[in-house]
């Protein structure tokens, strides 16, 4: 690996960053962090923990007292602040749209500063509005005060994206919005960051937002990093009581909201029968499976009496509970039950809710084309929790 590769491996690198205000109070100290390309890192902590200051040091809205921040391997102290800021998107809680400019002009700000011409600006504004799902005809020539708070912040995000930034800095961007709008903007941002593989630093004080948005979460307290980790690690292995209380590790079910079905053991594929088969065929398949388990000494495995009914192409149509008193010749489609679709991308919470709501202890997991590729069960969720501990 050449020196150049080593340098460009991380987009941002904080080295022993510290900030002391005039009164001698340490706002941030010993801050060390490396952020890779395409990563979303959330800074979180109680107010006054230094998260916003750290964010603002990144684009030199605050100067460092000591240490360095490297941006693409270059010390930001050596980069002209206005140039640095134009290569970083910036979204704040107060939105900060320019009230005397149209949405079009607001979004065009940074590309215009970078010297884009009229045609380029038109294209940029058009694509940014489309990305944020705002209709060009309806919104481009409106003024910010004519939009709702949620729409304004959509424009705020669009404006930050317009400069084609290498990293987007977001300082509690959804903090002032009502919960429903906040939720939809979070989903939107997740979609966009996946689409653009954008690097984002996101400051919040809301742990649910942090867990939802962050690939990694940096928990801060009194200007220091307490723990860095992905959401599930923080939930399952909090470094101390502060983190435990802060992330709410006691709430086991909350973890399931962030746990994907793919993360849980789902390899145990349930038995399948064809659409044209009868109830007897289902029971036969199931009994055979049970005998095999016993033979292999897997007596304690989940014995939920479910058999999948599949179409000719292998698509899951429904499930038959073989413990139910149907007559042997009942056609499969008349004794099967249809459950909510669970895929590998569903959350464990969705799977668990579906199991409880339908009074079953396992559910088939569907893969491509709706084919059953495995099953998630209460037992596998339980195993996951206790293995993680």
């Amino acid at each position, binding site marked *: 690996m050449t020196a150049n590769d080593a340098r460009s491996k991380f987009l941002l690198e904080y080295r022993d960053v510290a900030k002391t205000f005039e009164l001698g109070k340490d706002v941030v100290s010993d801050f060390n962090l490396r952020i890779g390309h395409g990563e979303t890192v959330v800074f979180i902590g109680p107010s006054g923990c230094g998260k916003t200051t750290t964010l603002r040091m990144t684009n030199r809205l605050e100067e460092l007292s000591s240490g360095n921040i490297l941006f693409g391997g270059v010390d930001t102290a050596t980069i002209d602040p206005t140039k640095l800021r134009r290569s970083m998107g910036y979204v704040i809680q*107060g*939105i900060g749209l320019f009230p005397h400019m149209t949405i079009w002009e607001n979004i065009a700000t940074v590309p215009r500063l970078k010297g884009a011409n009229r045609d380029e600006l038109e294209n940029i504004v058009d694509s940014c509005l489309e990305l944020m799902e705002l209709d060009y005809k309806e919104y481009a020539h409106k003024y910010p005060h004519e939009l709702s708070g949620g729409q304004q912040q959509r424009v705020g995000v669009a*404006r930050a994206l317009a400069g084609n930034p290498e990293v987007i800095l977001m300082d509690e961007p959804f903090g002032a919005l009502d919960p429903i709008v906040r939720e939809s903007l979070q989903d939107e941002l997740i979609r966009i960051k996946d689409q653009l593989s954008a690097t984002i630093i996101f400051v919040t004080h809301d742990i649910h937002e942090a867990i939802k948005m962050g690939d990694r979460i940096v928990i801060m307290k009194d200007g220091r990093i307490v723990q860095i980790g992905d959401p599930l690690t923080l939930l399952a292995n909090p470094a101390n009581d502060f983190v435990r209380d802060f992330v709410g590790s006691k709430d086991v079910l909350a973890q399931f909201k962030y746990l994907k079905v793919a993360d849980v053991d789902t390899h145990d594929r349930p038995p399948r029968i064809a659409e044209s088969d009868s109830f007897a065929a289902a029971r036969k398949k199931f009994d055979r499976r049970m005998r095999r388990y016993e033979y292999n000494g897997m007596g304690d495995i989940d014995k939920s009496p479910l058999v999948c009914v599949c179409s000719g192409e292998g698509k899951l149509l429904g499930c038959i509970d073989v413990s139910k008193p149907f007559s042997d010749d009942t056609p499969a489609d008349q004794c099967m039950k249809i459950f909510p679709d669970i895929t590998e991308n569903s959350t464990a919470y969705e799977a668990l809710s579906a199991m409880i709501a339908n009074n079953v202890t396992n559910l088939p997991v569907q893969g491509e084309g709706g084919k059953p590729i495995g099953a998630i069960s209460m037992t596998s969720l339980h195993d996951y929790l206790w293995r993680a501990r």
Partner: protein
Amino acid sequence: MPLGSFIDAFQSHFFIVVVSVGLAAATVIPLGVWARNRPVASTLILGFDNLISTIPSVALYGLLMPVLAIWNVGIGTVPAVIALFLYSQLPMLRNTLVGLRNIDPSVVDSAIGMGMTERQILFKIRLPLAMPMIMAGLRTSAVMGTGVASIAAYIGAGGFGTYIIRGIAASDRQTILIGAFGASAMAIGIDFLLGGVQKILEGRIGKR
């Protein structure tokens, strides 16, 4: 005191107002921009302007006369313009400061964060946003100045004040009314014109 034609009175009155208020605008608005984040300086300047405003206009002319007499311009247009220049400062300065200081800090923060230079922020963000307040100050100054300019007739500056003074001296109500009508019509006219200018400026930089 010779009673010139109505047109002459209009011209000299208009000249005094436009020159003095124009000069005040040209100096005070940049001064306000400079002083907006200098609390001590802006307090001192505002204090000075407040002090000036407490001096009755006739007294101010009286104060200026002996000083300007050194250059042989103790009476006439020069002291009138200087006095009016001083009077028109306060509303404009105050409005400029208030307009520039009342800008939503998040707007400025995001402008800085987006990589605008200090100069770009001033001309593209701060001044356009403060413009309605600054224009309101300018209009107040112009209307007030038109009134005060009438009194400048006492020191031989001409204008509609000449009619008023002459009318009072001769107890001629009609002559007084001509002067008063002329001055107030001019005040209304100037305000209307400046209102038009404000509309055009707002149209160009957008509404809020």
